[in-house]
């Protein structure tokens, strides 16, 4: 059977994509951020997952307001990265795992999650930046396949933190009922606190972020008590991306232990959090 070997949280800020493209790894602004990643890469190198499920929000590349789904799951043989309009060079496509995608879709829809299924899907920086951070060398990805899971954070109403956590739990059950010996890692992207728009632009809440980094490990249910409106107030308009972390955390059904963590302010307008969580059977 397939097994979820761990969960990772990481920021997905577009500026990181720029910094990677310009190889600013030793730049004083970027060094404390990039230096946090090698331990996570070493773990991935050792564990060698077969599939990465990447939970992110589309930022207006694949979805527009004419058809804005709450939860979407990719079921494509590969995912293209495309021009987002502000200069990030598109990366080569990522291989999918449609067979596992459909197993997840069947399983999760049977548990009353009303998915949008996507047999073609362009992935944006929300997906590619985490992939580039975790697998900077594509050659080291080996046969790694990917499944994008997209949560609406663009247009309210967003799904509640509690609903996202429950989706994660259903995702965990789905993966672990898949009849193939696969090691799966789930990546919750985005966050932590940030706000891009309005007079409150630049809002960051360090205390709230540190609390989230702690609770998401041992007491994720505590975070599901917040409403979306709470998250916007406490973590900024885009800080609501915490719901993506909650999907990831819900999928870790075993004994969870924190192998690595980092928190750094600021990257662009954001408090950037990194976590590596092992999921022991």
């Amino acid at each position, binding site marked *: 059977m397939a097994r979820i070997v761990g969960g990772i949280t990481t920021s997905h800020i577009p*500026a990181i994509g720029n910094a990677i493209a310009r190889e600013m790894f030793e730049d004083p602004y970027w060094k404390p951020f990039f230096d946090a990643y090698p331990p996570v890469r070493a773990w991935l190198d050792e564990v060698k997952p077969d599939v990465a499920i990447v939970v992110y929000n589309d*930022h*207006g590349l694949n979805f527009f307001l004419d058809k804005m789904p709450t939860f979407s799951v990719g079921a494509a043989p590969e995912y293209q990265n495309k*021009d987002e309009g502000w200069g990030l060079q598109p990366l080569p496509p990522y291989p999918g795992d449609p067979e596992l995608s459909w197993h997840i879709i069947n399983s999760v829809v049977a548990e009353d999650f009303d998915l949008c299924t996507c047999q073609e899907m362009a992935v944006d920086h929300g997906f590619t930046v985490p992939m580039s951070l975790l697998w900077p060398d594509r050659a080291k990805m080996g046969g790694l396949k990917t499944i994008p899971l997209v949560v609406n954070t663009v*247009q309210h109403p967003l799904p509640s933190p509690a609903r996202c956590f429950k989706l994660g739990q259903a995702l965990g059950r789905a993966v672990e009922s898949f009849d193939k010996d696969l090691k799966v890692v789930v990546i919750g992207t985005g966050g932590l606190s940030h706000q891009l*728009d309005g007079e409150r*632009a630049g809002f*960051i809440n360090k205390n709230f972020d540190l609390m989230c980094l702690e609770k998401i490990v041992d007491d994720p249910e505590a975070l599901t008590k917040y409403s979306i409106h709470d998250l916007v107030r406490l973590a900024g308009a885009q800080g609501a991306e915490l719901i993506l972390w909650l999907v990831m955390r819900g999928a870790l059904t075993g004994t969870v232990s924190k192998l690595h963590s980092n928190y750094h302010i*600021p990257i662009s307008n954001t408090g950037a959090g990194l976590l590596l969580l092992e999921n022991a059977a």
Partner: protein
Amino acid sequence: MTSVSAPEPIPGTTIFDGSMAMRGYALNKMCYSFNEAESRKAFLADEDAYCAKYGLNDEQKAAVKARNVLQLIAAGGNIYYLAKFAGIFGLNVQDVGAQQTGMTVEDFKAKLVAAGV
């Protein structure tokens, strides 16, 4: 149904909900088109014609002309789509943040650094 009734407003923050989405549809649709290089070129070649093609209202046209992010948001713009508009002029989220808060970009960046201390 308390969960549905509008909660306390958050100062300096516009929730992009159904009512904003209705107001901003044309503007956001135009900005969504800027994913494509050709659309960006067409906008730069004839801004007024491009805005007219997407049916922007006067408030939206004026906000576009002024490159004013707060006005664009008030006119229903969503920051994710507006980012593509800002990108045409090489502005990133820190430039946009500085403009909205009435700060210099340097001061805005310093404020972010200070949030980490």
